[in-house]
C-alpha cells in the first residue's frame, strides 16, 4: 500500500502541474490514529499529504458532482468510487471528459477503533475499479465474505409483527440528519423532495411516521440505481440498517426481472425500474 501511496502522490502532482486537471480527490490523514479524511486540492504541493491505507473509509465518488463544474478532476477510484462515477455518468450528472479516473485495487477497509473489516467492505462484490483511465498497482480480487441477500432472507423469514417491529424500531431512532442522502452518489436531484417545503411532501416533525416516509421514499428513489457501496449505512450516526432496505429493493428486482446489479459498465442496459416491457410482471393488474 505504501507503493501505491507514493505513486498516488507523484501522479497527482504531475496531473496538477501539467494543468491536465484542476483538482485531485483522494484521502489524507486525520488527527487521530488510523483516521483519514477526504483531501480535495488544486495545489500541487498538497499532494504530498495524500495517503492510502486500510482506513480510507470514505467513498469519494460523489465529489466529482460538485467539482467538475470548475473543470476536470482526477479521482482515485476503488470499486465503489468507480461505480459511483458510472452512476453519475449514467445519470448525466457529470461528463466523462471531466473526470480522470485513477484506479486502485481495494483489499477492504477497516474500522479505526476496532480494526475490523467494515461491514460494507465485507459485503462488497467489486473491490477493483470497473472503469479507469490508468491503474496504480494490481487488482486485489477481494472476495465478498457476506452473502448478498442473507440479511434480507433472514428478515423476510420473520413473522409479520416482528418484521414491522424491526423497521419501526429502526425509524424511531432516525434523527433525519440526511447524512444518508447527502453521501449517496445516487441522490443527485437538483431539489430533493425533502426540501420541497411548499409542496410539503414530508413534514418537519421527527416521529416514526415521517421518518419512515422519508426512509422508504429515499430507498425507492435510489431503487435500481443503488451501487451497494454501503456509505449510507456507514455514515448513519444512529446505526439504521439502511442496506437491508436498499437490498430488499434489489432482491425484489432480481426476483421480478432477473439477476440485477447496476453501474458495472458504461454500456449496460437501462435500469430495471425505468424501463417498460410488455411482458413485465404485473401481478396486481
Amino acid at each position: 500500500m505504501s507503493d501505491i501511496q507514493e505513486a498516488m502522490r507523484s501522479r497527482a502532482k504531475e496531473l496538477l502541474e501539467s494543468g491536465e486537471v484542476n483538482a485531485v480527490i483522494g484521502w489524507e490523514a486525520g488527527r487521530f490514529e488510523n483516521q483519514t479524511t477526504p483531501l480535495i486540492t488544486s495545489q500541487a504541493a498538497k499532494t504530498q499529504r495524500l495517503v492510502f491505507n486500510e482506513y480510507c473509509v470514505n467513498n469519494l465518488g460523489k465529489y466529482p458532482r460538485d467539482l467538475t463544474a470548475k473543470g476536470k478532476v482526477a479521482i482515485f477510484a476503488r470499486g465503489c468510487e468507480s461505480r459511483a462515477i458510472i452512476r453519475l455518468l449514467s445519470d448525466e450528472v457529470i461528463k466523462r471528459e471531466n473526470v480522470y479516473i485513477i484506479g486502485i485495487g481495494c483489499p477492504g477497509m477497516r474500522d479505526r477503533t476496532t480494526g475490523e473489516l467494515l461491514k460494507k467492505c465485507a459485503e462488497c462484490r467489486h473491490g477493483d475499479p470497473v472503469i479507469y483511465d490508468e491503474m496504480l498497482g494490481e487488482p486485489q480480487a477481494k472476495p465478498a465474505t457476506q452473502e448478498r441477500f442473507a440479511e434480507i432472507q433472514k428478515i423476510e423469514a420473520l413473522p409479520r409483527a416482528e418484521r414491522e417491529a424491526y423497521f419501526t424500531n429502526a425509524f424511531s431512532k432516525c434523527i433525519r440528519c440526511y447524512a444518508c442522502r447527502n453521501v449517496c452518489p445516487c441522490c443527485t436531484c437538483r431539489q430533493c423532495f425533502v426540501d420541497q417545503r411548499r409542496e410539503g411532501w414530508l413534514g418537519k416533525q421527527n416521529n416514526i411516521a415521517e421518518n419512515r416516509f422519508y426512509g422508504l421514499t429515499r430507498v425507492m428513489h435510489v431503487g435500481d440505481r443503488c451501487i451497494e457501496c454501503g456509505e449510507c449505512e456507514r455514515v448513519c450516526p444512529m446505526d439504521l440498517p439502511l442496506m437491508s432496505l436498499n437490498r430488499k429493493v434489489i432482491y425484489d428486482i432480481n426476483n421480478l426481472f432477473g439477476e440485477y446489479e447496476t453501474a458495472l459498465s458504461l454500456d449496460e442496459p437501462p435500469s430495471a425500474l425505468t424501463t417498460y416491457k410488455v411482458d413485465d410482471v404485473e401481478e396486481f393488474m
Partner: protein
Amino acid sequence: MIIKKDRMGALLGTLAQHKTVFVPALIDGVSKFAPYREGLDVRFDLHNTKLPPKDLLFPQTQKMYRYGETAEGGHYVEQFDESSERVLFGVRPCDMRSINLLDDVFLTKGFVDEFYEAQRKKLLTVCITCAAPAETCFCESMGLSPNEAPDADILLKSCEDCYKVTAQTQKGEAALADWRDFLEDTQAQVLPGKTSLRLNFEGVPQKLSRMYEDPIWDEISTKCLNCGTCTFVCPTCYCFDISQENKMKEGVRFRCWDSCMFSEYTAMAGWHNPRPTKKERVRNRFMHKLCFFEERYGKTLCVGCGRCVECCPVALDITRLIDDIGASDA
C-alpha cells in the same frame, strides 16, 4: 459523603418513583439519555452519549399550541405544556456547560422562551466528573474542566468504586434528602481526569472575527456533505424552525430542530438564499460556535465534547480548524 457505585441502581430505582430520571443508556446500539426503568442498559462508563441531553429541554419536535374554530363560530388557541419534573442524572461537565449556554440563549437578553423555561425550572441536574476522558474530548482547551461542573445541582466526583457527592445549589441540597439511605459518611480518593487532546484556543475568536473573507472557508468546506449530523449531535446547537399542520378547521403549531448546514435553512421568499453554498454554511457554523456567540454572550459555544469530531461522515474536524486558525497569523 459518598455513594458506592453498586448502590447506584437502587438509588435510581428510588428516585424514579417520584420523577422521571434520565440516565445515559445504550438503546439499540445508540447511547442517549433515556428514562430510567428496570432492565435499562444504564452506562455511566460512557464518556459521552452519542446524542446530547439537549432534547430534554429543547425537544427535536415540540408542540407549541393548537388552534381552531369552535362550534359557535369563534376560535380557540391553547398552549401546550409538556414539561414535567425531571432529573438529568449522570450528565458530563461539557454537557452541563451546554445547558448553561442554552440558558443564556433561551432565558436572557430580554426574551424568555416559556417552553424552555417551564422545563428548565423542573430539571434537577446531577453531573459525574470524567476520570478518563475520551480521545476526542477537548473540554479543557475550551476553558472547562473534566473535574468540575459549577452549574450542576449535585456533583458526583468519580472515585475508584464510589462517587463523592456534593450539593452545589439549594435545589441540589434539598434533593439529597431522598438520597439519605444510600450515602455513607466516608472519605474517598477522587480520580482526576485529564484530556489528552490539547488545542490552543487563545486568541482564536479574535482572529476569526477578521477572517470572514478568508480562503480557508473554501478549502475546508469542499469536503463537507451539508448533512445535519454535526449540528444535531451538538449539545449547544439551538436553531429551530416553526411550522404548522392544519387539518380542516384546526391546526397545531410546533417547532423542530433546524440546522444551518441545510440549504433551506436560510431560504427566503422568492428563492433568495443569502447562504447559497457549502462555503457560507460551514463558515456560519464555525463562526457561530467560536466567534459570534463569544461576541454576544462572552462565552464560546463549543464545549469540547468531541461529538461532531466523532460523528462527521467526512471527518471535518473542528479541532483541526481551531489549531489551524490558532497557528495562522490572521
